[in-house]
């Protein structure tokens, strides 16, 4: 507690960012330190779990220190510790969980374990100070593609998800084979802006009527087959066209289903979350389709779309207010369900 405000320390280490933040009253970011490992993993073409775990350990305590000093508070001012306990890479998660439990124990501060995906949704509470549930949420990140009904701060009802690859995984894979490299999402997005969306007819996978689920593995295979046959035929591949056409096939299905879900559940807002929420074309398309139905679309700024500690602090704050507490036996759960 400082100046009458409730302070939460949020810790996030589920993948390749070591991130810690101090948030006041669940809404105001006092500090948001993100130590990214992207440059380390780029040389391996993707996140290497063992290396991520090693770097998290070396980084975490310095990042905690910086988050406190950037917020101009000391650990004694902190009222709550929130930490991502899943889903994610187990070796990466456990660094955050071990550190959070040690802080809670050493300083007698309450502890709340947070679902990383709930954190992504909560990022919107930091961006839009008057946003309150209910709303429909679209959570799209490297490992997840979900449509989630949010009736309440602490309720997340998943109504659709991917049956195979997440959208981000499909982006990464295709980015790799067309030589754009890692991380695939932002690179495909950039290349697509220079390409023709209708150059190649990649299929849209709608699944059975009424389904809010996704499937991207067939599309990924189609893209790989296309590239192989073009190469074999000796034709030059237009990377920008492939990126634009592939991206269009992914985001058209996502946008369409998210808007249909909001309309069907009577929600007036779609709240976007996760790394892929900053994809330019997805934002454009979903805004168009939603506007036609009188539905608003909200999203966090790019820095809050990536993994960060502030979103974990916000989610922890609302869980704590609803009476949730984690014990010292909190464990990392790599395959934590929505």
């Amino acid at each position, binding site marked *: 507690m400082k100046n009458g405000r409730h302070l939460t320390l949020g810790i996030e280490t589920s993948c390749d960012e070591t991130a810690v933040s101090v948030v006041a009253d669940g809404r105001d970011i006092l500090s948001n330190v993100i130590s990214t490992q992207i440059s380390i993993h780029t040389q391996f073409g993707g996140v290497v779990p063992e290396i991520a775990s090693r770097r998290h350990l070396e980084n975490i305590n310095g990042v905690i220190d910086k988050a406190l000093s950037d917020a101009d508070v000391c*650990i004694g001012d902190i009222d709550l510790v929130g930490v991502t306990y899943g889903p994610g890479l187990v070796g990466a998660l456990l660094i955050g*969980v071990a550190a959070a439990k040690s802080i809670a*124990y050493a300083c007698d501060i309450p502890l709340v374990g947070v679902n990383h995906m709930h954190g992504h949704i909560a990022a919107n509470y930091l961006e839009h100070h008057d946003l309150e549930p209910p709303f429909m949420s679209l959570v799209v990140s490297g490992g997840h593609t979900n449509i989630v009904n949010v009736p309440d701060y602490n309720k997340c009802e998943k109504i659709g998800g991917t049956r195979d690859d997440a959208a981000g995984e499909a982006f990464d894979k295709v980015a790799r084979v067309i*030589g754009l490299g890692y991380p695939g999402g932002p690179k495909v997005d950039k290349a697509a802006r220079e390409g023709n969306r209708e150059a190649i007819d990649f299929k849209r996978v709608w699944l059975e009527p009424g389904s809010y689920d996704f499937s991207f593995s067939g599309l990924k295979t189609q893209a790989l087959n296309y590239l192989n046959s073009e190469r074999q035929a000796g034709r030059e591949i237009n990377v920008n066209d492939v990126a634009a056409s592939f991206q269009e096939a992914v985001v058209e299905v996502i946008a369409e289903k998210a808007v249909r879900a909001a309309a069907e559940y009577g929600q007036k807002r779609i709240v976007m979350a996760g790394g892929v929420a900053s994809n330019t074309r997805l934002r454009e398309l979903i805004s168009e389709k939603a506007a036609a139905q009188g539905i608003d679309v909200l999203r966090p700024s790019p820095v809050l779309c990536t993994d960060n500690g502030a979103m974990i602090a916000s989610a922890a704050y609302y869980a704590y207010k609803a009476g949730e507490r984690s014990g010292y036996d909190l464990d990392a759960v790599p395959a934590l369900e929505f």
Partner: protein
Amino acid sequence: MINILALETTGKYGSAAVIKEDGSVYCASSETEMNHLKDIITISDEAVKAAGISKKDLTHVAASAGPGSFTGIRIGVTTARTLGQMLGIPCIAVSSLEAMAQRVLSEAIAAGALYVVPVINARRHQTYAGAWQAVFTSDGEHQSIVSEMPEKQYMIEDLLAELTDRVMENGGRVFFTGDGIDAYGDIIEDAFDAKGIRGQLILADEGIRYQDAGSVAKIALAKAERGDTLTYDRLLPEYMRLSEAEQRLRDGTLSDKIKKAR
């Protein structure tokens, strides 16, 4: 005043211990295999309470920094670093192998062993190991160990070749300990048999064979007394091995696909 909390999470069962200035040790252990993260704070608190102190009375926090399970090492070291940071007390790094040697010392001396050899199974005939010599004063009261072969990765066959050569040359019995016995017990016995020195070989009983925080605490106390401590940010794991990806990058054997993506 000295009150050290010592953590040992590099093996199968995690444990925590508090050692006081007079050398008295209070231990608590995990009852479930590989449950380190879940249990670490609970067993630490049990050890603190058993010692009749409060966590605010702790003066140092020590961790067995490896070698051993990479995941286990990280849980102990991260916890020790963060407790050190938050309680404002120094950290102490202890070698898991040295602590294992410390644990069996009196049994080894009683059995007339010259060498104490802790061996951690690192799979596919790899081990993390080292050899210490048991040293004691003529009255037999003061026992300690001095390093005889460096702590590092050994192929079990190489370790055994070097040890049996030493025994052939200098005599003396060898006291093995650690889960390397579970994995390579037959190979160890065969190597001594082959040179006709099976009688020089002793294998630690299961009751004292594995890592435990009590021995980490004893070594930590000696280090604290001679001022061999670290600030929390300097306490780092001793993996003794690069990650596979880093090793491939160094050897130039990363797959072509990845090279292309770069």
